[in-house]
């Protein structure tokens, strides 16, 4: 499979008045053509920072302190802001969690899509408008000719999210980063939105990084899962393998907290403790150590990432 995104030893820090936040530490993963990788983990684990850092969207306090990330062979970590902006427009796209906030409230949705198409494909106004209608049809908006004139407030949350997807994929990007694309949507609308993304990946070979804290959604929609905890990817494997036999204690804890159709509320377990304070100068090598039921003295050794099985990587000295 051709690699679209290749990330190695990728580290990000934020400078704050109260200290340096070591938000990402030696993050590594690859996503191939047409592949969907899910990035899962608790709130605050570093999922969004990963997305923003890759696309050059970190705020002024944040910077990439190490590692490499290449998109279709182009190195992102050393690219100029102008080059990154061009990549964001054409080869990489992102969908944000709150679609209504990301759309322009006073411009009809068809126009907003047409704007993007004109900028990137250099189409005439009329061609761009008809292309926009076509794209609304592609993402399953009924009656697209009339709906093209609608403003964001006239659409439901699910429809806004589909418009966002239409805009994101207007330039046929090689990589789509979807940060919690269905939070707040009901499950039937969620399924429609996810189907559209899967269809595009199938048709155009688009690689997708699906950021979510819903393990069941990841189970259904990804080929591989990377589990993030406090800025470390602690486990990464093919989706089926990871869910059938999770090896990292954190992955197991995350699963034990996930409600399922068969379970019982009393059987669900929250994860004890909190994420460590990432400003600490003396962060332990394993950032899960203080919360881990399997902690050993050996866990104080510097962390290494190793393959525990073929294509199953883990950062743990005492895996299950």
């Amino acid at each position, binding site marked *: 499979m051709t690699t679209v995104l290749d990330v190695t030893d990728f580290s990000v820090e934020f400078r704050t008045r109260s200290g340096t936040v070591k938000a990402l530490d030696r993050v590594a993963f690859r996503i191939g053509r047409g592949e969907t990788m899910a990035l899962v983990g608790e709130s605050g684990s570093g999922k969004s920072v990963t997305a923003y850092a890759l696309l050059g969207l970190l705020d002024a306090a944040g910077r990439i302190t190490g590692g490499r990330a290449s998109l279709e062979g182009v190195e992102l970590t050393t690219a100029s802001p102008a080059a990154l902006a061009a990549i964001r427009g054409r080869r990489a796209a992102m969908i944000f969690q709150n679609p209504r906030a990301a759309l322009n409230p006073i411009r009809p949705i068809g126009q907003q899509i047409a704007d993007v198409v004109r900028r990137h494909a250099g189409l005439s106004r009329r061609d761009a408008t008809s292309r926009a209608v076509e794209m609304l049809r592609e993402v399953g908006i009924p009656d697209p000719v009339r709906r093209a004139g609608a403003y964001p407030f006239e659409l439901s949350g699910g429809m806004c999210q589909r418009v966002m997807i239409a805009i994101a994929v207007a330039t046929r990007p090689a990589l789509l980063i979807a940060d919690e694309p269905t939070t*707040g949507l009901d499950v*039937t609308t969620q399924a429609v939105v996810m189907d559209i993304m899967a269809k595009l990946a199938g048709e155009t070979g688009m690689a997708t990084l699906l950021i979510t804290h*819903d393990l069941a959604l990841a189970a259904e929609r990804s080929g591989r899962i990377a589990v993030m905890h406090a800025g470390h990817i602690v486990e990464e494997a093919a989706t089926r393998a990871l*869910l059938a036999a999770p090896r990292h204690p954190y992955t197991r804890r*995350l699963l034990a907290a996930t409600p399922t159709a068969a*379970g019982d*509320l009393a059987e669900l377990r929250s994860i004890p403790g909190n994420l460590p304070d990432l400003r600490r100068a003396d962060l332990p090598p394993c950032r899960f150590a203080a919360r881990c039921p399997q902690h050993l003295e050996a866990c104080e050794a510097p962390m290494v990432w190793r393959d525990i099985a073929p294509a199953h990587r883990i950062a743990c000295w005492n895996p299950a």
Partner: protein
Amino acid sequence: MSGMIGNDPTPREAEGRYLLDVAELSKRFPLGRRRLFGKAAPAMVHAVDDVSFTLARGETLGLVGESGCGKSTLVRLIARLTDPTTGSIRFGNRELSALPAKAFARDPDRARIQIVFQDAGESINPRFTAADAIADPLRQLRGLGGDALREKVEEAATLCGLPLALLDRFPHQLSGGQRARVGIARAIGPRPDLLVLDEPTAALDVSVQVTILQLLVRLRETLGISYVFVSHDLNVVRLLCDRVVVMYLGRIVETGPARAVFDAPLHPYTRGLVAAVPRLDGLRADALRLAGDPRSPIDPDPDACRFHGRCPIGTGRCGAEMPKLRRFDGGREAACHYVEAA
């Protein structure tokens, strides 16, 4: 414990079998800017349409359905934050529907119905400490002050697993889970008989969600509170709720014991909904996938099933005759002409 509430205008023994009895409740919003064919009557959004259900004491009722189907409008009606267009809301022995929301805000029964919104944590006044936030309704609704107030605030915080040391913190100094606890402590402080929760865990990650759900179970056991619980997460509804109401475009399409409804749905919409829930085993029921979008809630055809056009069964009859809720075995109800055919 809840039997010790002061200020109670209706003696508990005299109350009926149901804590809440909602009948033929409707809420329509006028759509100011659109006019149909130049007629003066404005078009109406039928947000809640002819909804009837009951809630027993200590029972937890789940409320599910597509975005925009009227769940929040319905719970705002029940909590008497908005006025119904038509219909009845009996709470205990009292008919509340005729009482304007404004008057109810000062009513002694106000304390008996509390609501927690989706952004419970975010909706706390940023200049209030956790203690102020919890104290506010106790002061307003129970008229408490001084030591008695302090004592009740601490009791509510303790019940919600909120360390007392956090009480003088401001919202931005608390984690999402701690803020959710403050939101719930604030609502249970006045010891309501009914707690309405509108997507209380939507913004929380799974680990924090577990602690909040287990807290709700504990409160139900110690205080005997009834819940109406709105959520998009069907697995959570199944775990927490005794019964479930499924809505589609303002109307109830199915109700019954939560597990029975989700294990063997009767209504075609419920079947599509259940089939869309992602599963950890990754197995999907693609054949039941719902396509298309719901019809418009603006002046819908009163003689057509609201699901017609999107329903995999739908026939000519469905476009000409609105299906009524019918009873089925096991305390279940569904509104579809073809329940028996499926």
